[in-house]
């Protein structure tokens, strides 16, 4: 720890964590999509936090980019009272109003992760910012921070509340703000993993580069504020979620890797 802190004093950029070239363990034994294996990756620098509304606003201001949700009016939003895995279509929702105009904007949430953006929107941001999305393996290596377990701290899912903004209620019929946040939390509101990466689990599902099946299907990892122990407990280092590349959900965001 002291070693790391000393190093940090000489690093100009504190928003990225450097992962060195090497062999790393990923996956889980018998997992259909993500079997246990050792992989080799070249060094990369990954964002310590998810991309924020502030950062996305800078991109939009510079490029006048129009997101898929703004163009197609097809965003999927949440409000308490919905059955499990049910989302609402809201033509007013976009990154500026992640759950629709009636549920408020991001003016006072600029340090929250950007959401209600599609995979295509994330790619557009990356192109502008001269960064890229992490590969499945890069994301997983960063989330594990050296661990081979389902969670970076081990196998006990009950510790999730220390590290992640998730949904703690049994279902989504009533609001759950028991950890201080019903929707997103400001990035780095919870404890980081041992490599100093925040919100690798929970807060927002993070898009990864590449496709496992069809090209129209993209993938995101780490779970989100919506995910609960009861439904979609994907706030871990193993599982991989899927979504349509044009879909803009209010629990989807991304972090980036330096090119």
């Amino acid at each position, binding site marked *: 720890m002291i070693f790391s802190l000393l190093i940090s004093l000489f690093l100009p950029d504190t928003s990225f964590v450097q992962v060195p070239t090497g062999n790393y363990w990923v996956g889980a034994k018998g997992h259909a999509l993500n079997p*246990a294996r050792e992989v080799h990756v070249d060094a990369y620098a990954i964002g310590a936090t998810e991309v924020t509304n502030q950062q996305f606003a800078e991109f939009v201001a510079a490029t006048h980019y129009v997101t898929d949700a703004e163009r*197609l009016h097809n965003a999927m939003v949440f409000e308490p009272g919905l059955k499990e895995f049910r989302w609402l279509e809201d033509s007013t929702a976009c990154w500026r109003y992640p759950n629709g105009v009636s549920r408020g904007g991001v003016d006072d949430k600029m340090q929250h992760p950007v959401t209600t953006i599609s995979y295509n929107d994330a790619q557009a941001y990356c192109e502008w910012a001269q960064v890229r999305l992490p590969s499945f393996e890069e994301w997983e290596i960063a989330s594990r921070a050296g661990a081979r377990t389902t969670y970076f701290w081990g196998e006990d899912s009950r510790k999730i509340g220390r590290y992640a903004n998730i949904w703690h209620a049994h279902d989504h019929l009533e609001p759950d703000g028991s950890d201080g946040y019903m929707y997103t939390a400001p990035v780095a509101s919870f404890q980081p993993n041992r490599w100093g990466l925040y919100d690798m689990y929970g807060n927002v599902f993070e898009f990864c580069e590449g496709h496992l099946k069809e090209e129209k299907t993209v993938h995101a990892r780490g779970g989100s504020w919506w995910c609960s122990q*009861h*439904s979609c407990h994907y706030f871990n280092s193993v*599982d991989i979620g899927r979504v349509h590349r044009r879909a803009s959900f209010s629990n989807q965001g991304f972090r980036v890797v330096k090119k």
Partner: protein
Amino acid sequence: MKLIAATLALLLPLATFAQDQNQEESWKPASAESNAYREYRLKMTTPPYGLAKVKGLIKKNTAYMEDVTIMSSKDYMSLTLREKFTYHMINPESYSQNCDVEPPIQDEHKKVFGHLPDNYAELNWSERQRDFLQANRDSVMEIIKESANRSKRIGLNYKMALVEIKAVEMVPFLVEFFKRDHKDLDILTVLMEFMAETKYEPFVKSVSYTKLYSKNSTYNAYLLFNQANEDLIIQRAMGMYNAAN
């Protein structure tokens, strides 16, 4: 913001990382019989009503909307009720967010789950489609009966539609259909979802409800399929139906 100042420079490769020694999560493959039942569970029914016409319009609208197929209002309004039903059953026009793959379920053919599986991949019914099912529930139930009797099967999409509209009126039909071959345990799931959704008191007070739908349950919770559970589910479902009629 609690972002610590330190950016950890990770200078050492795997060989010297102190990786946790905890045992990895193990995914045990399911048996061939279990896998075959899984495949059976996920099968949809393709309605025959105006199928060629509907497919043609889907193709036309797909080209317009890239790879998301939302039929234009004009084309949609040109469909008959039965053709609209076909469209909704074969073409969900909104999005869903899914876990890509679940761990294999052991002995799936011996389990009665609390919820139906999802097989529309990253798509789901839109509000327009759900509204259609609700607004035309009598017709939807009749069409499903007719189609299921012809194909000798109630596809997953049909069962999802029945749950969507809480088709309690279908209980006798579903019970009779299930008794024909005792194969499709998801029919029992539909019956239990009706009882859970309508808060049918004898069911809500039962051990089964606690196991499948209470605060301590998980979404994938199940009952073992055996004669006693089958009898109990059917008896309660018929009780609910009789109470409502």
